[in-house]
């Protein structure tokens, strides 16, 4: 086999694997579906080219381009990575919290088509359709790029850089920050409600993936010495997606495997198809695209987890401390209530005139409510009374049309959900909202505020930087799990649990966020009555410790036993408030709700 053929293969594998790692980090780990991924590789390629090329006048003037700084290696590669990362910033407006993921993906796809169209037609910038050529190779004035030694070194450098990128993305993925990214991927609204800043997380991923893609483009351009719009059509992004899906989204080794199987494999296998003049000229390339499309659809159907599935992150709990029998659960120094709230003002939450419409229907109509510290306040009302809407406005998931909300005396009406969670106002959801592909333990850990490893910088700093915080969080999670009797399930995937257990996970996770006040949306719906009563007892115990809870619930027996006071809503407004015994004596309440 030809040596240069092997070198060529190695370099392509290195470049494609690197790009796939960037995409795997964005798509597989963080759930950011960047259909414009190829833009970033293209930008890196152009950046490396114009940094390395001499001024266009010195180049015979046969191509026109901006830049031409003639800078020495490794400046073009560094520049490629920087440009790839920086051009990600304008795209963040598409991936914020507001826009549906599939619409954002379409926006990115369309941007890729647009930029390709512009680069093709606008010649002065980057020589248009013809593209750039004669791009200098690294250190070509000192060594001969045609020599085998040079080519081997180039291949080695490409593979080593790819390995470094692998180690880098793994370091990020296996950190608390990586766990937050996976939580966002599994359910972004819930991650938001637990204090995660989605915009900043997604921006981080776009920039990081963009820089990796840019570097891969820079390396590629330095090797092939040409770069034109034909090399980065939107369909190239689809090839990279095919690679990541087939290899295994969420597993970086899978991304590397996918890169070797799809872009490299396709390029190489088709070389061995005998060419024949009887075949139409475009047949083989067309069929290749058809095959890539088929691979995507078939894999998503038959093996959506890919060849190498995401692996489970098992956290082994040290068994050194002999676990005492469950009956004698140790009263460990576990404070679940945020001290600032436990000893704060008497009125924890107060609303005035809260209103919200849905397309002409007034779901919540001027609700003024105050919740006192240490109470387990119940919220009941017939279906459509506006309970869940009210809760969503209190948590910041929905914006009120008018009215104000104050938490611990501070006006939070305009505060986004993740900031409210950070202040200690934490909600749970009516529908099951566990992070399915995180274990129970990871679900709990994902909510811990102020973990040093829960930022891009902390993740890059490495395990030693955040190991202390992580150990403390694990110890705390373990106590919470023990209190709710789910310790044995710590390393089960949350998505595999029973309905009742999932409700427990959600409450435990909310507690891990160190709330000052909990907003619970039907925490006992669909839960076995025995377990429901156990939850009720735990909640009242929490309130004795200083927690404040507002709970929507339909089960009147639960309200009778645990909640005081109870607020009755009907038609978007507060109808009455008091103990259940008082409410049963009030005619309008009985008519609106109790008699049904």
């Amino acid at each position, binding site marked *: 086999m030809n040596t240069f053929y092997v070198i060529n293969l190695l370099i392509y594998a290195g470049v494609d694997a690197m790009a796939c790692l960037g995409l795997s980090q964005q798509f597989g780990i963080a*759930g950011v*579906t960047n*259909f414009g991924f190829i833009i970033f590789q293209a930008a890196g390629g152009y950046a490396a080219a114009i940094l390395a090329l001499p001024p266009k006048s010195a180049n015979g003037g046969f191509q026109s381009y901006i830049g031409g700084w003639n800078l020495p290696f490794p400046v073009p590669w560094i520049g490629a990575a920087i440009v790839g990362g920086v051009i990600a910033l304008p795209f963040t*407006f*598409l991936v914020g919290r*507001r*826009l*549906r*993921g*599939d*619409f*954002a*993906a*379409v*926006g990115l*796809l*369309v*941007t890729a*088509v*647009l930029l390709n*169209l*512009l680069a093709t*037609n606008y010649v002065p910038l980057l020589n248009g359709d013809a593209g750039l050529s004669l791009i200098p190779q690294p250190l070509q004035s000192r060594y001969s790029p045609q020599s085998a030694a040079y080519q081997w070194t180039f291949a080695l450098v490409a593979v080593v850089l790819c390995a470094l990128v692998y180690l880098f993305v793994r370091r990020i993925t296996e950190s608390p920050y990586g766990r937050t990214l996976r939580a966002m991927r599994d359910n972004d609204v819930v991650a938001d409600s637990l204090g995660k800043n989605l915009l900043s997380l997604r921006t981080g991923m776009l920039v990081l993936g963009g820089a990796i893609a840019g570097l891969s483009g820079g390396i590629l351009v330095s090797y092939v010495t040409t770069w034109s719009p034909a090399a980065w059509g*939107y*369909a190239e992004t*689809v090839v990279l*997606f*095919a690679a990541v*899906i087939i290899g295994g989204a969420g597993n970086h080794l899978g991304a590397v495997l996918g890169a070797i199987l799809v872009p490299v494999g396709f390029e190489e296998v088709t070389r061995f198809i005998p060419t024949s003049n009887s075949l*139409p*000229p*475009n*047949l083989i390339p*067309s*069929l*290749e*695209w*058809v095959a*890539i*499309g*088929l*691979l*995507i*659809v078939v894999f*998503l*159907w038959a093996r*959506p987890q890919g060849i190498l599935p995401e692996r489970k992150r098992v956290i082994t709990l040290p068994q050194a401390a002999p676990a005492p029998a469950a009956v004698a659960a140790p009263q460990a120094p576990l404070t679940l209530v945020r001290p600032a709230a436990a000893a704060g003002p008497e009125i924890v939450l107060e609303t005035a005139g809260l209103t919200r419409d849905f*397309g002409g229907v007034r779901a919540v109509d001027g609700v003024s409510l105050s919740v006192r510290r240490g109470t387990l306040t119940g919220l009941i009302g017939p279906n459509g009374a506006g309970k869940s809407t009210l809760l969503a406005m209190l948590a910041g998931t929905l914006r009120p049309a008018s009215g104000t909300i104050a938490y611990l005396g501070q006006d939070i009406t305009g505060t986004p959900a993740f900031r409210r969670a950070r202040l200690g106002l934490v909600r749970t959801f009516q529908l099951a909202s566990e992070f399915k592909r995180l274990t129970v333990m990871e679900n709990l850990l994902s909510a811990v505020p102020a973990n040093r490893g829960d930022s891009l910088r902390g993740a890059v700093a490495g395990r030693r930087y955040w190991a202390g915080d992580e150990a403390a969080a694990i110890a705390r999670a373990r106590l919470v799990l023990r209190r709710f009797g789910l310790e044995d399930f710590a390393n089960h995937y949350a998505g595999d649990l029973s309905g009742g257990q999932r409700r427990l996970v959600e409450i435990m996770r909310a507690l891990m966020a160190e709330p000052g006040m909990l907003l619970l949306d039907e925490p006992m719906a669909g839960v076995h009555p025995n377990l429901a009563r156990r939850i009720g007892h735990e909640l009242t115990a929490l309130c004795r410790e200083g927690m404040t809870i507002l709970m929507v619930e339909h089960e009147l027996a639960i309200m009778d036993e645990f909640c005081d006071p109870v607020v009755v809503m009907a038609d978007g407004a507060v109808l009455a408030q008091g103990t259940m015994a008082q409410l049963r004596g009030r005619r309008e309440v009985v008519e609106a709700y109790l008699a049904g």
Partner: protein
Amino acid sequence: MALFLASVGFGLVTASVLAIAAVGFTLQFGVTDVLNLAYGAIMIAGAYVAYVVNQAGLSVWIGLVAALAVCSAGSVLLNSGVYAPFQRRGTSPITMVIVSLGMTLIIEFGVEAVAGGTSVSYTMAQGRTVQAGGLALTAVQLAVIALSLVVMAGVHALLRYTKLGKAMRATAANRTLARNCGIRTGRIITVTWALTGALCGLAGVVFAIDSGSFNPTSTDIFLVLILAAVFLGGPGQAYGAMLGAVIIGLATEVSAAFIPADYKYVIAFVVLLAMLGLRPTGLLGAAQ
């Protein structure tokens, strides 16, 4: 001024083609909940069906009917064979988009494998040029505009006055509720695929007539115009798509009178990105 009026003429034709395509796309998305990016690929497949009929010596207008039938049946099959099974599994919307991109590659390059990558055109007479108030349009262009107006009136009548149209609107608004009200949503969705598939095939042929020559990848950019029109009016909104098509169609062609024609699509891209970023529910959609 003459240039401006000529470009308005082109704009009206483009808007007519775009309206047929965009109304089909938006109804498809609204009722079935599938953001079917393979729509452009199916359009071009329809254009090639008409080409085959045309090459056999028949009129393009007969080819148009054939394309309509093939794309309608093809869309129903695409749904029942691919999209519906994925949806029944609870596949996330984003994965559905990736599936539809995979189908785009399969259909578009499947056509290329069969038909080759070179551009082709229909054999047809353009007819007499009609002058009216400074606008100069060929008989074929007028026929395209007339066809589009008929289709828009038909869609309007369907949605407003027929039981089927009301059932479609109900299914789009809330599928579960519609089913609970006794609407056979499964059947409505199949009918919607057949109907929007037919619109897609129709759009493919009039697109090919309007562009003169076409190849298997010709609709890549046109799909962006469709998306721009759809998002301008609000995804799922049939009347919004009509309005969006008129705005985008006129804007692209009229802007071509003032900027290099290579950049005439830029305005559509900018509109689409602005709508996605600022008001994804569209001009006629509810504010968030």
